[in-house]
């Protein structure tokens, strides 16, 4: 019997990983804006999940629990990291680290703002907003989570989440529009 559990242990964990790691990695990527760091964070989040399985209440949706762990972890890490970044690098900005993306979706000049340009606009907006706005926006827009579940993951009220998502969406909207109106020369280039 113990053998069964011991085997089931890792197997079940592997299943959890297979099912959710893309979501977690995507969340982390939007959160920190750096692919390598996002993947490190994702690994740490799953290790943490494994170790903190006992705090999971089967009454909560697993995805909500997972994103609570993920958000807390990312918030802690980013706070620690930002302190360092602020004091060491100022020139890294010009490289516009932003969000790296895998593979180029072929450029579609017919679309106003697509692919990498859109990615950059969204990345810049995300970077400029508060961490909680960023977390709420990411869970809402990229994971399709309901406000109520986001509230649970962020340990906030639904009213607070509504306002976080609104501010974040407006910020992204303005950044995207800004790039769009400025992208006329970019279009004539193509």
């Amino acid at each position, binding site marked *: *019997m*113990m*053998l069964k*559990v*011991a*085997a*089931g*242990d*890792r*197997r*079940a*964990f*592997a*299943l*959890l*990983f*297979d*099912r959710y*790691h*893309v979501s977690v*990695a*995507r969340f982390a990527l939007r959160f920190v804006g750096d692919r390598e760091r*996002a*993947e490190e964070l*994702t*690994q740490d989040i799953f*290790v943490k999940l*494994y*170790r*903190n*399985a*006992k705090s*999971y209440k*089967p009454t909560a949706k*697993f995805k909500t*629990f997972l994103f609570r762990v993920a958000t807390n972890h990312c918030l802690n890490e980013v706070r620690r990291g930002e302190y360092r970044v602020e004091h060491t690098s100022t020139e890294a900005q010009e490289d516009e680290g932003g969000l790296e*993306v*895998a*593979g*180029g*979706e072929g450029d579609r000049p017919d679309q106003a*703002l*697509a*692919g990498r340009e*859109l*990615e950059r606009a*969204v990345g810049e907006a995300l970077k400029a907003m508060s961490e909680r706005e960023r977390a709420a926006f990411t869970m*809402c*827009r*990229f994971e399709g989570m*309901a*406000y109520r579940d986001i509230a649970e993951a962020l340990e906030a009220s639904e009213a607070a989440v*509504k306002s976080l*998502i*609104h501010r974040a*969406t*407006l910020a*992204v*909207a303005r950044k995207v*529009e800004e790039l769009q109106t400025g992208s006329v020369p970019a279009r004539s280039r193509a």
Partner: protein
Amino acid sequence: MSCPYEEDLTAYVDGELAPARRAEVETHLGGCAGCQGTEALLRRTVASMAGLPEYTPSPAMRREVLAKLDALPPTLGERLRALLRPSVLVPAAGLAAMAGLALYTAAPSEPVLEVADAGTLELAMNLEVVEDYDVVGLENGEDLEVIASLHELEVR
């Protein structure tokens, strides 16, 4: 900006407003050009998110996470079991490792999606409860069976 309805527009676009408030916002939208503009902007933005490039995490991550788990210090449960019956449990651990290996090597590139049933996941999420003998609130029958049969390992 100054319109008091503005702050509800994203929730409106997301279909997250309670029916009564939703109706109010709808009525207001009919007569407020500012909010109409904002609503259109929000809808465009939400729709444009689909145009972001897909992100595929590195396939090496799975192996690396599992390696990190192997490197974790043993839990109380594991230490206890090792103390109780090393001659039985060492081969058992070996078998478990083999079973694990078989799983990981069988389909390294194809994630085992949708296989996870609720029961397995729940068991997975409760494993540390079992291993730490922290049985308060345990409801899963199988978990209880594990706890109940622990003494057999001692006797045999």
